[in-house]
């Protein structure tokens, strides 16, 4: 039940990414290109996602157990340190270079050709290297 639910939730997440336009790198770059012909679509993706997720997380904060009986694990870190800020800046550079962030890259693996495949392989290497600095 637990694995089936997370599989279906992953499927839903991926369908949302495809529908939203996030799996199209040219569209992502169109959003990030503020000074060109700006495509504001992706602001609506984040807005729409938060609209639904916000009440759910407020509820989750007040509970200790999930509906399937697991412990609710919310991040406990609150410190704003160099790892957070430098990491976020480096992520943004990579996002601007290729137009892919982690979710859309994985969702494009079987439909997007070589580009998301190469991106995902080096992203996994990057994740492994980054772990050493955490």
């Amino acid at each position, binding site marked *: 039940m637990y694995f089936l639910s997370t599989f279906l939730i992953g499927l839903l997440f991926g369908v949302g990414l495809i529908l939203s336009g996030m799996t199209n790198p040219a569209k992502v770059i169109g959003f990030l290109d503020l000074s060109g012909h700006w495509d504001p679509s992706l602001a609506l993706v984040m807005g729409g996602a938060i*609209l639904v997720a916000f009440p759910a997380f407020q509820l989750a904060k007040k509970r200790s157990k999930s509906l399937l009986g697991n412990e609710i694990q919310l991040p406990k870190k609150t410190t704003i340190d160099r790892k*957070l800020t430098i990491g976020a800046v480096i992520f943004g550079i990579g996002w601007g270079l290729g137009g892919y962030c982690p979710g859309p890259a994985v969702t494009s693996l079987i439909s997007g050709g070589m580009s998301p495949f190469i991106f*995902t392989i*080096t992203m996994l290497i990057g994740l492994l290297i980054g772990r050493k600095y955490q």
Partner: protein
Amino acid sequence: MSIDWNAFTPWSSLAGGLLIGLSAAALILLNGRIAGISGILGGLLQFRSLETGWRLAFITGLILAPLLYGSFTTLPSVINVGDLSTLAIAGLLVGFGTSLGNGCTSGHGVCGLSRLSLRSLIATLLFMGSGFLTVFLLRHVFS
């Protein structure tokens, strides 16, 4: 700045966003876990047995999503940006950056902002800002 009205897709982007939010809401309320894709992928690379199962199931769902989508309607056309060596560098930076900064667009941008985390707000402003700046430099300065 001018708005590219031809490329603007308010309804499909909003609908996609609502589905992403629904997925994040379901994962935290049903399973008690955060839908942060870089965190889930990073966790899979740790081979920590207790959490590996649900992470693998979630990622399998993500990978298979185009098949489900494609069985209802045609997949939207996709244009990749940059050559393969640029994408290889981009992937390395995205992996390293999200690992160091503990999150990406989904973990910080959707889940973190939804639980009103200051850390996630700072991270989101920074990766958006550096994304804007990177594209500005590539498109309008070094092009």
